[in-house]
């Protein structure tokens, strides 16, 4: 959302101040905090992805990536997750139009798409485990499960936040002017999606060394 407000002085009216509390930048504290947090998360995922890439092709025993990966299957679940970003945008747009009923529909859709992705990941983990890949089997297993599991945990936290928001709105406890709450949860959700694009590319699509 583009920020059009100019920097507020202490003379701004109470109504303006409620919409955007007076800050040095005109941005809300929460928004800057969320961006800072996501910046930190980049390093978190960056370090995990680096570990995976460092250990690519270094496992001494199988199963190896090409033994277990089912690219068409994971492509579909990746598509599902990406579509959830679209529905998140629609939820925010509905909130901006003060149409909470429609916002709830889109929030629930987003949460369901996210849950579908998580369900797909659980299924994928089960298939891999049955194929002999586990945390302690080899380096591939350790780095793959921890990286994708960590991402899955982030998606799950996102789903919890979406459902909390849904419940608040359904009970009429979400004030109309709290557009930014929806926006910030959306920001987190999009971040988790973008990280998945990186993981899907680097982990699944880039061909293995062996």
């Amino acid at each position, binding site marked *: 959302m583009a920020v059009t407000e100019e920097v*507020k*002085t*202490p003379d*701004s*009216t*109470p*109504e*303006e*101040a*409620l919409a955007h*509390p*007076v*800050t*040095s*930048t005109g*941005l*809300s*504290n*929460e928004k*800057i*905090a*969320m961006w*800072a*947090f996501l*910046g*930190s*998360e980049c*390093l*978190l995922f960056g*370090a*995990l992805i680096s*570990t995976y890439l*460092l*250990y690519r092709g*270094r*496992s*001494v*025993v199988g199963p190896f990536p090409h033994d277990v990966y089912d690219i068409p299957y994971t492509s579909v679940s990746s598509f599902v997750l990406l579509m959830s970003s679209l529905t998140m945008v629609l939820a925010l747009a509905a909130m901006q139009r003060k149409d909470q009923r429609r916002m709830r529909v889109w929030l629930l859709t987003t949460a369901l798409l996210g849950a579908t992705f998580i369900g797909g990941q659980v299924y994928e983990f089960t298939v891999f485990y049955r194929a002999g890949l586990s*945390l*302690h089997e*080899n*380096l591939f*297993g*350790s*780095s793959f*499960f*921890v990286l994708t599991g*960590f991402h899955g945990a982030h998606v799950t936290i996102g789903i919890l*936040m979406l459902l*909390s*928001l849904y419940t*608040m709105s359904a009970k*009429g*406890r979400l*004030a*109309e002017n*709290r557009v930014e709450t929806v926006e*910030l*949860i959306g920001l*987190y959700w999009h971040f988790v999606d973008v990280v998945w694009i990186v993981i899907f590319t680097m982990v699944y699509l880039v061909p293995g060394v062996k």
Partner: protein
Amino acid sequence: MAAVATFDRPAPRRLFRRPTHPTGLWDWFTTIDHKKIGLLYLGTAFVFFVVGGLEALVIRLQLGGPNGHVVDANTYNQIFTMHGTTMIFLVVMPLSAGLANYLVPLMIGARDVAFPRLNAFGYWVFVIGGLFMYSSFLFGHAPNGGWFGYAPNTEKAFNPAHNIDFWVFGLQILGIASLTGAINLIVTIINMRAPGMSLMRMPIFVWMTFIAQFLLLFAIPVITVALFELMFDRLFGANFFNIQAGADPLLWQHLFWIFGHPEVYILILPAMGVVSEVLPVFTRRPLFGYPVMVFSGIAIAFMGWGVWAHHMFATGLGPVAKSAFALSTMFIAVPTGVKIFNWMATMAGGKIRVKAPFLFAVGFVTMFTIGGLSGVTHAIVPADTQQTDTYYIVAHFHYVLFGGSIFGLFAGAYYWWPKFTGKMLSDRLGKWHFWLMLIGFNLTFGPFHILGLQGMPRRIYRYPSGRGWDFWNLMATVGSFIIAFSVLLFIINAVKSRKGANVAEDPWDARTLEWSIPNPPPEYNFAEVPIVTARDEVWHRKYGEDEQGRPVPRSVPDVPSEPARLEVSGNGERELDVEEQPEEEVREPTAHDLHIHMPTPSYYPLLAAIGLPIIAYGLMYKAWYVAVIGALVTLASVYGWALEPSTEPEEPEEIAEAGPAPEPEPQAELEPAPESAAEPAPTGS
């Protein structure tokens, strides 16, 4: 200024009645006032400083002579590991965090930090993380892998007991504290500055804190990943550091030092900020080259990310990597050297008042210079290969962390003590403290250079006689007790200061905004948000300049002829009142009197923090249900936290306290003050 607006937010549902006006001890447990949290940080970290210091004394007693027999090898490993971990994570980092918490809002003219409850959460997570790590002594398994915890040495195969688990979980918990603190301070500094407080008017301490918080923001996740991987190896049998499975023995070192070198600057930058505040006040000159100070700090922070492998020159990285990191390590000395010259130029030609804070600041500059010079010798790969794992390294990092950070932080303690407590520390005792500490410090760590060059390795618990190490080790032990005695003088000084007279709000004739408000500051900090017109705002309110640029006091009768000053500060008026009736005890108006709505205390930060060690114990001892209970405690607290407003609607009268509390009307009074009354999103802010 209290504009009242109604707002159709429904009344929050709650688990407990909120502690709106707690008193006594309970006040400290639920406070979200940045000043109280700052003092809690400082006090707790000082306790850990004493504990870490006692551990150091055990080490020095053991090594005071050849074939020491004070402790056995296993205990020695635990003691030196806990000494390092304590001093870095439980002393210098939280001391800096405490100073930042207390001072940053005051220096930028804010009434609190951006997220007061998150601030309290950060403090409680720090305390609980520290206590968790120290609880390992009760189980007889204190961490014993060094403060760097090199894997695979810390893998289950080589260290099967729970020692390392305490370290892994303890540091992950402390990382949460640092991360939330960093986000909070970054947002505060970006967003909560008073009108006119542009970035380049901020006090240099605020700048250095700002930079250090960015380093924390990006460094903490990297060590979190390293600890996370080690945790998976130890608890679930993953292979991240399992060499038999093909793991890279250098992965840990890379991850750890990508965190670890920025960490060094996280430890030193705030102390540099303190010194940059103290020197101008006691030389009565503005800081020489303020913009250069700011940009050299930023340069250090950027370059700090590109030097980590100089901790690994002995690991066989290959000539290209070694050359690159040797060069970057030499280059990072440049912005650091620039700072040292700036401090010297600030002192040169100043009207120096030799007080305890000034002495400690000069101690910082000189000792840090020595440590910096020995640091440059590490950049030279062949020399470093010789020095690696000897006492020369120990000498270096004590000169920068003790001679640097600790001297700088003590300068801050003497300087801001009147602001914190309203009392002065004795300058005479302070000078004794300084000289004894300086002598003890150099007697302890100076000989380490010699011992290291003579080949005495680090981390040995015992050495035979006849290697020429005996004399200097004995000197170091004597020195360490002199340091301990000097710290005792500080404690005596602190206790004695309680009986002293109250001091006026600006005892040092200082320059920055925190000195424009009473000692100790009222809950709301500034009765009116100050309007800033210059760098060193308070100085410019007090002094004009003559033709030669020398400071000339603005005489008091001038004040009324400058209506702008009265309007902007409101402090001028109060100063006048105090001067006219110095005897009369003036009661500070409360936030209620001034219609300032401060955020309300809360239980949830403490409760959310309590869940974390429960999770850790559950995971360590594989009692999954315990971990689940801990997770539920934290999750429930986060929800309670997200659903309660940051600032409770004000109750009409104090009478409302008694009797069955009437549920507040479904409306909140908010006012357009800089502290955001906006409710945090349920993202756990």
